[in-house]
């Protein structure tokens, strides 16, 4: 287990008061914490990889993930558990039970939300619908128009979570399905520009719905050599997203990547490979302070 503190800054106010003045309690900023746990591309990896000497031998498995999630929930006050799609496909569990167990386990682990990956259409939109009706977590996507499909009232563009003092907006974006998923499977699902959809939704969440922090669950993919929309391009084009949790490219990162958004402010991207080998954990400390003193608007990595 690796732990790194990569965004850290004191508040000028608390620093000033703590060093010079006694009337600190009056001005001490209010604090609130949030723990974000996330997975992506679990691909029906219900059991750990077999002990066959392979690269991931013994890694992963829902039962181990659940135990760790429970432990973290017991230690942390405010926890969000999120998934970035491709829940389905990859082991016979999906071929034989159609994703039933995958969703059952996510319910049991109390996932808060998940976005939809291309392989989540592999049993057809009807197969996805069948499992979605049993989900106790939200399916979130803002760039697939499901209005002419059976999924139309089962997917939300965003969801707002109140955790302690913090209002968190979670939105989701998915990859272009044409050319990747047979149309017979996704049927009348319409793909909309993910950057525009994500930005419009994030703006709504931040400016009108009062969210303090906006998370984008993405199944666009981390980065491409060719000119193709990815988490990197979305990050550079966004203004109101604080964190992109990604999937699709099965990218293992040692730590979240910090990039500049359209306003030159920091935005983080993370992805945890695939198959449930890693559970990502971001522990975020929020403080309530004067905007002009908000150094976190320009956070930096401290290693």
């Amino acid at each position: 287990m690796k732990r790194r503190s990569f965004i850290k800054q004191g508040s000028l106010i608390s620093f000033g008061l703590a060093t010079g003045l006694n009337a600190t309690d009056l001005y001490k900023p209010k604090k609130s914490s949030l723990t974000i746990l996330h997975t992506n591309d679990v691909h029906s990896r219900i059991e750990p990889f077999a002990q066959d000497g392979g690269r991931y031998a013994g890694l992963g498995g829902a039962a181990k993930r659940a135990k760790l999630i429970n432990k973290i929930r017991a230690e942390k006050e405010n926890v969000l558990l999120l998934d970035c799609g491709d829940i389905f496909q990859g082991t016979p569990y999906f071929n034989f039970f159609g994703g039933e167990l995958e969703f059952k386990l996510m319910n049991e682990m109390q996932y808060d939300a998940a976005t939809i990956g291309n392989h989540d259409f592999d049993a057809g939109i009807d197969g996805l619908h069948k499992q979605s009706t049993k989900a106790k977590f939200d399916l979130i996507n803002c760039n697939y128009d499901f209005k002419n499909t059976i999924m139309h009232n089962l997917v939300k563009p965003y969801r707002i979570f109140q955790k302690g003092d913090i209002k968190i907006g979670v939105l989701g974006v998915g990859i272009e399905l044409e050319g990747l998923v047979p149309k017979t499977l996704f049927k009348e699902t319409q793909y909309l520009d993910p950057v525009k959809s994500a930005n419009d939704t994030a703006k709504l969440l931040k400016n009108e719905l009062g969210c303090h922090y906006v998370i984008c669950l993405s199944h666009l993919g981390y980065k491409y050599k060719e000119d193709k929309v990815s988490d990197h391009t979305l990050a550079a084009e966004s203004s109101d997203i604080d964190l992109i949790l990604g999937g699709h490219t099965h990218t293992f990162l040692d730590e979240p990547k910090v990039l500049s958004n359209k306003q030159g402010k920091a935005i983080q991207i993370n992805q945890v490979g695939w198959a449930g080998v890693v559970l990502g954990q971001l522990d975020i400390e929020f403080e309530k302070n004067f905007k002009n003193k908000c150094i976190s608007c320009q956070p930096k990595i401290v290693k």
Partner: protein
Amino acid sequence: MKNCNVLIGILFLSLISLSSCKKVWHVAQSDYTLNRLDSTAVFSDPISELIQPYKVKLDKEMNRVIATCPEDMPKGRPESTLGNWMADAIYDRANELSEVPIDFAMQNSGGIRIPLLRQGDITKGKIYELMPFENSLVVVHLDKALLMTFLDRVARSNGWPVSKNFYMKIKNNEIKEVRINGQELEDRIYNVALPDYIANGGSDCPFLVDCNRTTYPDLLRQMFIDRATNDKVIAASKEGRIEN
């Protein structure tokens, strides 16, 4: 002295109030923990119990050893032993099913879902991991121009798994030479065995969507399972089917 401090405090606050409008929640610190679920991690009993009835049903069928693999067979481009074995299995079965002779069989590289088939016993479950998709067989009937469009696509990906009667030389992701059964391409219809996923436009093959085709209900995975079960051995060699 205490009063004085409070006074300074109030003064400080007033200054801040003048310089900014209101307090807002913002990120003060962000820590990341990479939790690797390795073999030391503890299992949750309730979750294991939930999995158990599904596992019992699957294990009975999936843990059955159907063949052995004498040496590691990795996936790779432009050519790989694993890819050759798969493409040949599709080719042979397609030829049995098809009324017209098959020119060659191809499988998209992205459709192979394990990095390698390890030396040792191969279970039925391993073939499911190799090919989890419910892809069925399609034989597309392509004229020379459409065949070249398809092969250009394959060359851009630096080659896909292909059956034994095919040869292609690629340089900088472009085709330099193509031979099918040792012959240069002619103006005729070529019968190519593919996963339905590709024939239906998948993996950036939209040009195939409207082509002439014969579809079969037979799943590719079943072809691999049958081939492995019959042969008892899974093996193939690299023979320069696609070169770069």
